[in-house]
């Protein structure tokens, strides 16, 4: 049978208050999400802005506390833990951020940035240790003495990765790791991440809006829409046979190089911010297959075949 999940999220809920003009609205960024991460099985979370994926990522690394639900690390409930109780967790789970510049302290040189993390793990790094980390991410030795502003975006992101790895984490949550980089650099970083998967034995949770970057790195994908998971399936299955209408729209909207991927699928109107329906299925206002039940009842996530879950009334019949 399967080993227990490394990290488990159950019924996670997170709300924010948003003030626009004079009006205050309560937004449910993450709405009752369940997620299991198993070591060795990298996972992708795909969603657009407003889907809640970044918030979910932060909750996963305990940068944010959920308003409801539980987080289990191994067998331990760490939802309410703080400070020293999280030491093991912090050593095992790291995060890589979207903006390579802002994720490095601009006042510190590369070697100090990496050494800083070593010290947080109560280890004293030697110069060799630092250089080894740099080599791991294919950076030259002379980068060690540079400041972040002297590096290019791609180099900075490599430093961020080298730094995260110095703690020997088992899981790395990467939030849009290549979106802020130039196109020709993106694939370099993606390939680096793929190489490290094998070399350093890390499992990834890759959060992104660019579904095309996922097949290279993850075995399983969760699709998020307006705070909920609407579909989850193994990577190839999701891409070749998407079931949820949103997933289908998403996949057909991705521009492809091999001629137009005009699958004839209608592009859903509006966008998440203005068209999220409440009281039933959140995708109701944009779904070409919407039925009466979709308007009033929110579909729950059901397993339709091995490893594939969908929240859609169409498949519940």
């Amino acid at each position, binding site marked *: 049978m399967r080993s227990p999940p490394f990290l488990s999220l159950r019924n996670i809920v997170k709300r924010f208050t948003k003030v626009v003009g004079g009006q205050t609205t309560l937004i449910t960024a993450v709405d009752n999400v369940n997620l299991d991460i198993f070591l060795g099985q990298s996972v992708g979370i795909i969603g657009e802005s407003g889907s809640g994926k970044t918030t979910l990522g932060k909750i996963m690394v305990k940068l944010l506390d959920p308003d409801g639900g539980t987080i289990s690390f191994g067998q331990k409930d760490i939802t309410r833990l703080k400070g020293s109780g999280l030491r093991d967790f912090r050593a095992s789970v790291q995060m890589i951020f979207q903006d390579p510049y802002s994720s490095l302290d601009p006042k510190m040189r590369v070697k100090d940035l990496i050494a800083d993390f070593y010290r947080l793990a109560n280890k004293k790094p030697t110069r060799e240790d630092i250089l080894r980390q740099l080599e791991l991410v294919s950076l030259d030795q002379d980068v060690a003495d540079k400041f972040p502003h002297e590096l290019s975006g791609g180099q900075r992101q490599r430093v961020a990765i080298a730094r995260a790895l110095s703690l020997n984490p088992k899981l790395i949550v990467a939030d849009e790791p290549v979106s802020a980089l130039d*196109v020709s650099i993106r*694939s370099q970083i993606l390939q680096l991440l793929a190489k490290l998967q094998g070399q350093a034995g890390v499992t990834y949770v890759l959060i992104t809006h660019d579904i095309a970057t996922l097949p290279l790195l993850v075995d399983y994908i969760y699709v998020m829409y307006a705070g909920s998971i609407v579909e989850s399936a193994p990577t190839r299955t999701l891409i070749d046979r998407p079931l949820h209408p949103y997933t289908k729209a998403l996949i057909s909207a991705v521009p*492809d190089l*091999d*001629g137009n991927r005009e699958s004839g699928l209608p*592009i859903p109107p509006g966008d998440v911010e203005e068209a999220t329906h409440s009281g039933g299925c959140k995708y109701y206002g944009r779904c070409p297959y919407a039925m009466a039940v979709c308007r009033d009842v929110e579909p729950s996530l059901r397993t339709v075949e091995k490893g594939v879950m969908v929240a859609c009334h169409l498949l519940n019949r």
Partner: protein
Amino acid sequence: MLEIRNLSVTYPDGTPALQNLSISLGTREVLGIIGESGSGKSTLALAIMRLLPPDANVKGEIIYNGKDILRLSKSELERVRGTEIAMIFQDALSAFDPLMRVGPQIVEKAVTNKTLGYKEARARAIDLMRGLGVTNPEARFDAYPHELSGGLRQRAFIAMGLFQKPKIIILDEPTSALDVITQAQLIQTIRGLKEGGLSMIFITHDIALASTICDRVAVLYAGKMMEYGSVHQVIHRPIHPYTQGLIESTPTLTSVRRGLKAMKGYLPNLKSLPGGCRFHPRCPFATDICRSVDPELAELSDGRLVACHMAADSK
């Protein structure tokens, strides 16, 4: 419609942003400018609109309607900008005055020029927005920029650009800040505009996106054009190693089968370009001549232009 001849732009600090660029835009055509940061693509857009800093060194000609835009007088330029050639760029939020409602900003220029009365202007703007796919355009007209979502704002921005019925519209990364589905919506809208007779220059870093909407494309690298031809030629059968590299390293849903290949090296610093062909440090085919001589754009038998020593040989 628009012909750019030997355009070179050097910024006051000496950075050579564009070198000797020559392209042309036909009627009802979407010309794609593909490039990454430092390629010069935005500089090109700013040069056409004459929005570069006054102390930038600009050489060459940009011919529109028989006249060189770079040499137009201030009043002629005012007339051309916005009314004949319009520009949309990436960040719609900063394009709008946050303290004014969106509608008045869309019609502003026409109303101040007294070409239209406010009532008619408003009606036209609302029609325009509806045609662009804006839901509930009457309400949107009176909305403030921050009240609109990204996609709506971008459409309002396009409405502002189209309002005076320009002949040419330059779109600089119009969809970069938007999600995939909104992007697809916008592309559909842009396709409609093309069918309606508009000529467009579509600037992007996303080569796959360019392939869905452009007729011809120019690939820029570090200020110089590397390849120029139809989408069918350049994107489906690329010859320049940079174009090939871009395509091979762009992750798409089919790229797993194709195999994702990363381009080695970094984008060069414009102030210290490598000698010879500026792409040679990253080129898998570089030879001695590439390291010493900067290749000229040469026409190949299929009509496209390529700046590559290796390509010239395979003519």
